[in-house]
């Protein structure tokens, strides 16, 4: 067995970052204080038909150094929520604490100070079109009155970090979407913030560029120890880089937890809807032939096995097939690793097995966290 496989399968190696899975780390006691804390946060807008609630009763802790995802359908309140962290949006009720300080009473001076400690990147990049790449990244330092030699050092350093050396004199219009977002990231990091807010930062990018930007964000998170809060409507983004996730619906938190848990075993209907595009469903032709009861002697039983990641390891297929008896064919399925956990679905057709449907299920449950009979095909 190769070293990699050993690491993948061993119970300790399977969990790459124990502190990211929900237990506060004993090694880093300061992580127990929430970096950002929402207390009973509410926001209402004045609409044409009176007050429209955008957020209500939000209670959340975002830990120092984690990548925290906020997902929801459009209009769920994600934008409003992330903007209360740097007070681009003023809450109507409740409080936001950053490093245990209530930012509710901040005036322009303290807000400017706060915002320099919180970087933000945007879906449409929001770069100044009349300024070069260099000037865009330099702007936050310039308005803060940082001396020129320091500005030059910092801007050069950041453009190198995001891989845009040699583009100093280009204007945003001359850059690709991915390059623009890299400028956005450099600009957001120029004050060495402790928090980075990402507002649908990859939604305007193609899949390949999305991967490279997410890779850069992950690198920044690990190298600089920055807390990242991101909002998105794409579950794939959450899977790619987040440690924990909350699902928002109609301004309320409907589900939250470590990413592997929400992916492996989503509790709320909205979470399931958002996850649907990523999941393996029964092939359509099989679905069409599916019958609720066995029709012939040798009808195959269609089983749906779910691996929710709660025991961490990949399913042992040979043991599973032996336990089921008879002929087992794989209709559809796959397993993926999220945060070192194996999650997935297997859709199996079992025929010629001496076991009854109920027996199949109880056998299957020794290997999968959930198992059910979907029906029978001839």
């Amino acid at each position, binding site marked *: 067995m190769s070293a990699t496989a050993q690491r993948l399968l061993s119970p300790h190696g399977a969990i790459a970052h124990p502190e990211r899975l929900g237990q506060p780390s004993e090694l880093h006691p300061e992580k127990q204080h929430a970096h950002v804390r929402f207390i009973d946060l509410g926001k209402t807008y004045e609409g044409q038909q009176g007050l429209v609630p955008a957020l209500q009763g939000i209670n959340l802790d975002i830990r120092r150094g984690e990548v925290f995802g906020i997902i929801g359908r459009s209009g769920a309140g994600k934008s409003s929520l992330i903007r209360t962290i*740097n007070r*681009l949006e003023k809450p109507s009720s409740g409080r936001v604490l950053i490093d245990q300080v209530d930012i509710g009473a901040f005036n*322009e001076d303290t807000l*400017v*100070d706060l*915002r*320099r400690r*919180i*970087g*933000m990147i*945007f879906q*449409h990049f*929001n*770069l*100044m*079109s*009349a*300024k070069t790449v260099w000037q865009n990244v330099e*702007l*936050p330092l*310039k*308005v*803060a009155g940082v001396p020129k030699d320091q500005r030059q050092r910092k801007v050069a350093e950041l453009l190198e970090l995001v891989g845009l050396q040699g583009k100093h004199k280009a*204007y*945003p*219009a001359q850059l690709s979407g991915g390059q623009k977002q890299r400028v956005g990231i450099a*600009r*957001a990091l120029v*004050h060495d913030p402790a928090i980075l*807010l990402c507002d649908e930062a990859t939604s305007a990018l193609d899949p390949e560029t999305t991967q490279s930007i997410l890779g850069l964000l992950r690198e920044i998170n690990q190298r600089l120890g920055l807390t990242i809060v991101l909002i998105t409507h794409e579950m794939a983004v959450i899977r790619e880089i987040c440690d924990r996730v909350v699902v928002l619906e109609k301004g309320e938190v409907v589900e939250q937890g470590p990413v592997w848990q929400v992916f492996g075993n989503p509790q709320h209907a909205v979470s399931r809807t958002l996850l649907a595009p990523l999941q393996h469903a029964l092939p359509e032709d099989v679905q069409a032939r599916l019958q609720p009861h066995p029709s012939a002697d040798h009808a195959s039983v269609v089983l749906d096995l779910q691996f929710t990641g709660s025991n961490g390891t990949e399913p042992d297929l040979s043991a599973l097939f032996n336990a089921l008896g008879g002929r087992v064919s794989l209709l559809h399925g796959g397993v993926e690793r999220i945060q070192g956990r194996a999650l997935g679905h297997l859709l199996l057709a079992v025929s010629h097995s001496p076991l009854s449907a109920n027996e199949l299920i109880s056998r299957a449950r020794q290997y999968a966290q959930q198992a059910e009979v979907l029906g029978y095909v001839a």
Partner: protein
Amino acid sequence: MWLDRLWQGVIDTFLMVGVSSLIALILGIPLAVILVTSGKGGIFEAPNVNRVLGAFVNIFRSVPFLILMVALIPFTRLIVGTTYGVWAAVVPLTIASTPFFARIAEVSLREVDHGLIEAAQAMGCRRWHIVWHVLLPEALPGIVGGFTITLVTMINSSAMAGAIGAGGLGDIAYRYGYQRFDTQVMLTVIVLLVILVAVIQLGGDRLALRLNKR
């Protein structure tokens, strides 16, 4: 010699338009900034200031220049001590063109993407930083275009001012071309005005294009 007179007319037109457009530029841009930022949801939100300024601008914009010029005669006398000549024309020209230019500049400033203002706030810009580093540079190509239109309109108005005694090309065309039926003078003035306007328009367009990095 009528050529000398023509030359004097060109100089007078330049003087009238130059001085009043400079004042319009200096007053119009801050006026436009106040109009944009004091509006609802603006960074210096002040609805009352916005309403009063807006009303003022509208009043001056709705009075035709000829009538404004006559109506302002007492005010002009108060300011420059005379109601005749180039300097007397500068007063109504400035008062007519400042609100005109401010409205055009306002449109350009308003078109600056709100996302940029949000980004500026998020990076820790104070409000006047946003005006200076975001609103004005981003709107500059549009403002240059607007100023070009203002200049052309002012050449137009200065001819009207000339006709009632301010001097300049309009005065020459009216007195020599129209009243003395001197077609040669009339045509020369028309050609000069066309060239002047074309040069201004071309220069303005070039500059706006060069400033536009979008």
